[in-house]
């Protein structure tokens, strides 16, 4: 079923704590199938936003709609559409893996007869099938995170709220988690995923919101943000061998070019600069470098990723 209205709609959300406003007048709309990355440093208000969406904390005011259902008015109906995963895995140490999932399958009102099938399905998806009869206290941190993810997906929610799902994981566990999330993301679910580690998000988010001190600094699809804030690319030039004169000539030429800025040499064979031109302009720059008789072995024009946008926007607008 395709919703005409946004899958998640937040209007004027405010969340206050003692002496501090965690979220201030947040407006946000996320469409079905969007994977929305909520980015920001620690204390930016990401967790409070996600907790308010999950119905765990009561907002000071504001309206939250999940699949068109008002969270305050039809609380239970709205919660049925949601799957929430916090940044650390709250588990029952003395239960077995399948028992844990069975408990939450019951919490999400999945009928008794359907539960074993669903549990097996999700244990397979998160690669924990062989651990189904293991006590949770014997699982590693990564396995616990995957178990909690399986719990989050058990009732097939339309909306997933994932608060720093890979925090505290080692690189292998992080990759496992990313692979599972990518496979889940392909199922047309609406996902909000928060992180302060931007590399976690840039591979599968098609929209981002950058939060800082409780406020949304910028929000939208990555393409949309690029267009709004001006397309920024990076030029990366690599020389065949160290050539001080060639390096200097290239830097001078780039500094004189109107599309290039922040030119810097990373090593005696590498130059990097911000680039604000079209692909044709990049081609023209390449021709100029060749005309300078500099031997280059690599010339790349990279698109700005989420991380670059965050650092640029976060640094400029917030401060």
């Amino acid at each position, binding site marked *: 079923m395709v919703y005409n209205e946004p899958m998640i709609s937040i209007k*004027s959300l*405010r969340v*206050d*704590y*003692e*002496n501090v406003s965690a979220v201030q007048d947040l407006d946000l709309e996320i469409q079905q199938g969007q994977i929305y990355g909520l980015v920001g440093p620690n204390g930016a208000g990401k967790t409070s936003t996600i*907790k308010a969406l*999950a*119905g*765990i*904390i*009561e907002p*000071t*005011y*504001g309206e939250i709609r999940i699949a068109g259902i008002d969270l305050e008015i039809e609380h*239970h*109906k709205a*919660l*049925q559409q*949601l799957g*929430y995963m*916090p940044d650390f895995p*709250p*588990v*029952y140490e*003395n*239960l*077995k893996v399948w*028992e844990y999932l*069975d*408990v*939450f399958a*019951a*919490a*999400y*009102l999945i*009928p*008794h007869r359907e539960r074993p099938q669903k549990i097996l399905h999700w244990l397979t998806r998160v690669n924990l099938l062989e651990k189904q009869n293991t006590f949770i206290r014997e699982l590693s941190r990564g396995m616990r995170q995957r178990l909690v993810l399986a*719990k989050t997906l058990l009732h097939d929610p339309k909306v997933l709220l994932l608060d720093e799902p890979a925090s505290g994981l080692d690189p292998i566990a992080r990759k496992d988690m990313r692979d599972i999330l990518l496979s889940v993301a392909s199922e047309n679910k609406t996902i909000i995923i928060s992180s302060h580690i931007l590399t976690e998000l840039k591979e599968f988010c098609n929209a981002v919101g950058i939060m800082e001190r409780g406020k949304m600094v910028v929000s939208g699809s990555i393409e949309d943000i690029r267009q709004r804030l001006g397309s920024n690319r990076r030029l990366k030039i690599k020389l065949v061998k160290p050539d001080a004169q060639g390096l200097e000539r290239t830097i001078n030429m780039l500094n004189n070019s109107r599309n290039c800025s922040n030119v810097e040499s990373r090593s005696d064979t590498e130059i990097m600069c911000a680039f604000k031109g079209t692909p044709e302009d990049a081609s023209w720059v390449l021709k100029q470098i060749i005309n300078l008789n500099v031997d280059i072995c690599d010339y790349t024009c990279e698109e700005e990723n989420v991380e670059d946008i965050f650092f640029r926007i976060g640094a400029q607008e917030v401060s």
Partner: protein
Amino acid sequence: MNIFNLRNNALFLRGFRERTRFSAVASAVALSSILVVLIVLSAVLNDNYVYDYKYIAGEYQSQKVLLPWFKKVVLDLSKVQAIVLFFFGSLNAYRIAARERMVQTIDFHRSSPSPRWNQIVGLVLGSTCLEWFVFTGLALVLLAISLISDISTAVIAQFHVQLIFCGFLYHALFALIGISRDPLKGKAGPILIFVGLYFFSHLLFANQLSFMHQFTWLNAFHELDTHVKNHISEYYGGHHRKQLLGLMNTFFSLKLHPLFIQLLVQIPFIALLLEGIGRRFENLEQPIFSKTQTLMTTFYLLLLYAGSFTSIFLSGLLQHTHRSMDLGILFVLIWILFAAGAILATPSRLDYTRGLRRAAKLKRRGIRPEENAAGNSRWLGVFVLIVVIGLSYFAWLLRVPSLNFILALMILCSYFDFCASFFEYFRLSRHHTKLSLAATILIILWIVLPVLGMILESIIPKPSTVMMAFMAPSPFFGGTPVVMDLFKTGKPYLQTTHVVIVLVISGTLAAVTNYLAYQERQKLKRDNLNIG
């Protein structure tokens, strides 16, 4: 969804699975079996005597009576049942509920669409299921003994029904304390609650108030004990046990069935405690009980107190020469109810601000009085009304002169107003995080000044008037003793001047703190009502 469909109850499944592992069940069954065998062997191998008292020639004379082994077994096993159900059950209800909060798995349940009552029932029953199994097993043993002996099965059944309701009450209480434990704070809170409950219950027990006994399993046990030893007339605390037991089952001098009076006392509190657990699932930040619930509890406890006190007062069975002690306990109860209610009914600065902002957003003129965020003025008004109704009854029962009664009420209400307004002002003002500041002010008013007054009394002339002026700010040294003195029917100990001093000082304090609280509310309204 059916709340007793435990197969689909998440929190029940969690507790049930954790607590009914083969090893745990096997240990429980083995230990219970050994205990039953030991109790039976001990009863069969040893002669058990009880003392039968007869009133002969103006005095009680005792006679040793042999108690049959099966009766001894029934009495001993019933004590084991109580220990299993109340001690271990309550301990596990607290432990599992507290862990739910500490590990924050409670958030998963809170963000699930599981019905609230399922969560409440699941938490309380799931965490104590093993104790209920053992209890049921021992109950079957007791029923079997009743079938092969002359002990009435109906008596055994009634005893068990009484125990079951006591179990629900304690398990709900301990689960509520556990689930209210803040993971960011230490264990001090629950320990203080337990210590407070212990001393509070002892205070009320000391007064032989029947409703306090109905909160425990003791009444059920005494009923069973009396029935099991039916031919024995025991002498207990200066009276026949049967007579005392009769007093425990009366309400406003009306004799009621023991089970009925127990349910009358316990069911509203079981419901209240379960509702408190439900409110935790709803919102961890809101007070455990709503303003309305605290008022209803106050009313009901005063009603129970009045019913129990009337029975004792009119029975003539117990010597009630110490009226001041009885009144003292009544006023302590009222103060405890006031303090607990004020803590729950007074919003924090954050809650009040939130409430104002929400009201502004919804284009309301202010916070509705029944909301958690509302100030405590309306609550205080209704609380005072309840206390006035309650005390009017006691004044009528004790034949207190009207003028004394009115003066006592005015003084008492001034202290309530002062305390509630001071607390509200402090919670709403910018000093709300400085607990030490509030504590210092109260220590000066309530302890330092009275002590100073006592010192001055010994060194200056006209001591008692000066002393009273120093005592007056304290509700414990100044207010309550004056109120109690006014409740006396005989010649009062204090002079009229003393009463006037206390009235003026308590009234002035109330007016000042009321004004401060009002100003603080207005300030927050000015700051927040235009936000939107």
